[in-house]
């Protein structure tokens, strides 16, 4: 999408012969009709999906762009707000806190997940006994129901009677962290959980990437007498570049959209997130469906959109420059 169109590509035929643009071949009416027919058939196949997409995704997205500059509660008349919604959100402490938390979460989760899943993939790519078993075990957190596994984590990390803190106390830690109940540890606990949950999934993608590496490269490297570390650094990593790039983008976007994990881990029974754990999507939900300020919610969503777009563009640029 961002690549420049190669200039002049269309002026060469399939055989590489130059095309004189001054010669225009007049299509016959029958050919035109056949083409139209073909297109219509194709469109009719796309139609069911596209109509659904347009009604439920495209129109709402365009609508959200408009709404960001309006005041609306969903029923009464819309009024023009100009930039008021943006002024409001950038002075709103909860929104700013959610922005900060989301960035912290992403910066914490993405590199850790990348490293952890790559490590797992390399280890489980060796011919070891019970390899499939361990692969399944690593993948399990990803398929487990979020509600169930967050409940288990909350028990494990319970500040006063959780087994993690019991063990820490036995090991001589007098004041073990209060994890999700402590403002300073809450985000860390959420990052830890996310890495654990996601690493199995990205491990599978890395495994596919590892198996796609030509073994001749390793043989050649062995003949050149390089050690294992050098093999990893000069063969494996560069060969996995495309995989890493894909994971980086998917994971970053996923992290910016985080909501369910934080809600389930830190929301407690009331499902209310505090300033220490609130995230962008939660604030958008709150503005829209608790306060019914749809304009403000759209403005917040626009900020999220701009961030994700910017990061994706930067990542694509970096990828191209390499």
């Amino acid at each position: 999408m961002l690549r420049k169109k190669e200039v002049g590509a269309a002026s060469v035929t399939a055989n590489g012969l130059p095309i004189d643009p001054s010669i225009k071949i007049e299509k016959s009416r029958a050919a035109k009709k056949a083409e139209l027919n073909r297109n219509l058939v194709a469109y009719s196949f796309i139609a069911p999906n596209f109509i659904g997409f347009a009604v439920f995704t495209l129109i709402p997205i365009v609508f959200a762009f408009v709404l960001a500059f309006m005041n609306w509660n969903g029923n009464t008349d819309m009024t023009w707000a100009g930039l008021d919604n943006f002024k409001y959100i950038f002075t709103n402490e909860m929104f700013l806190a959610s922005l900060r938390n989301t960035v912290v979460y992403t910066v914490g989760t993405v590199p850790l997940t990348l490293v952890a899943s790559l490590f797992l993939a390399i280890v489980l790519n060796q011919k070891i006994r019970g390899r499939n078993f361990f692969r399944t075990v690593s993948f399990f957190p990803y398929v487990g129901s979020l509600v169930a596994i967050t409940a288990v984590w909350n028990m494990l990390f319970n500040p006063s009677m959780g087994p993690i803190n019991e063990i820490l106390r036995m090991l001589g830690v007098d004041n073990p962290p209060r994890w999700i109940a402590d403002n300073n540890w809450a985000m860390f606990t959420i990052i830890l959980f996310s890495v654990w949950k996601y690493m199995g999934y990205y491990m599978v993608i890395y495994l596919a990437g590892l198996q796609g590496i030509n073994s001749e490269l390793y043989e050649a490297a062995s003949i050149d007498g390089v050690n294992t570390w050098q093999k990893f650094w000069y063969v494996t990593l560069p060969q996995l570049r495309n995989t890493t790039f894909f994971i980086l983008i998917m994971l970053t976007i996923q992290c910016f959209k985080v909501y369910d994990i934080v809600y389930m881990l830190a929301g407690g029974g009331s499902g209310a997130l505090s300033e220490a754990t609130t995230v962008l999507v939660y604030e958008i939900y709150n503005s829209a469906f608790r306060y019914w300020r749809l304009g403000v919610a759209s403005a917040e969503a626009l900020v999220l959109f701009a961030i994700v777009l910017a990061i994706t563009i930067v990542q694509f640029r970096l990828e191209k420059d390499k």
Partner: protein
Amino acid sequence: MKKTIAVLLTALMAVSFVFANGSSETAASDGTTTLTWAVWDYATTPYYDALIEAYEAQNPGVNVEVIDLGSADYQTALQIQLSGGGSEFDVVAVKDIPGYNNLVKAGLLTDLKPYVERDGIDTSKYGGIVEQVTVDGTYYELPFRSDFWVLFYNKDLFDAAGVPYPDNDMTFEEYDALARQMTSGSGSSKVYGAHYHTWRSAIQLFGILDGQHQITDGGDYSYLAPYYEMALSQQADGVVQDYATLKTSNIHYSGVFYNESVAMMNMGSWFIASLIAANNSGQSDADNWGIVKYPHAEGVEPGTTLGTITALAIPSSTNEKDAAWEFVKFVCGEQGAEVLASTGNFPAVTNEEINNIIASMDGFPQDEASKEALNVAQLYLEMPLHDKSAEIEVVLNEYHDQIMTGNMSVDEGLAEMGRRVDQVLAN
């Protein structure tokens, strides 16, 4: 080519049908009227069917159907359904005050005052609740349930400890001393003297019972400090369970009372029906229990307590306003109140007769004090009606949490609470 256009047109029509079908006809050809009622927790709430049966028996031409929107996101789901302008609901239950405020602001409810005045209904029987939900001189809902907070206690635990039961006239100092006296044991035999559920109402709203302050006023919240300090020191001394533990483990208040690990618990009157049912089914061991009036500050009348209401409203989009109003009038009136009371729930219309129905229920404690505890002197809503109530609620919850988990000191937390509520009010 013609075929493809036909296919496209059919697809478009199919799509537009889906959207055009929002408002369905409610009056059938045989003269019966069908009313659709939006509720939550239909399967676990006995009174919906009881009310409908009683109403249909009186009004043979009317059919009431129920649609359950679920409890967790009820207000959100309801408002989304009503916002389209073409919902099928004729009557809706309104769960809380912030939700009511949002619906009113969006112009989704019918003004009920003209109907009330036309039919000459005396709203004083609701004990001031109608005045508390009045917006710009009129109101859009009528309460049918009104719950208030009382102090539940486990008689067996008091008997075992040889401590006299709490009574209907207790100050907070007496309550605190009693809770400490009732705390005993450790491990699995540990008995906590009191219990606070993780809702902010359970502690924070002790502070508004003197009638001097509105929780939505913002500014100086230091008047809440004594109650937070009492709760925190009880927590530190093991008199009540640790807030952070309760919250992260998502522990429900009913369980700790059922398994006899707490001697006293402040909770809403809705817990009476659940407790009786749990005792009957054997789910609960706490079958010897009682209630007394809420503890009160020095100089405040006993029986002053917190309340929360459940109300009915009529969406402005319905075509069956008159039929809907007749149903609302029934459910929120004396007849509905009797049906509600017979299922162990507290109707918004209160009088001696209704209290007698509840107190004579099987499983309700037989002592005089428990029956007397049903008389409310003054009721303050957990969340008063305010234009920004939904946003204020979030701030109040947040700092309740920060204080109770020890992330902030009481003074720090209350100062922040005031600052943030002021910010909400200014915007």
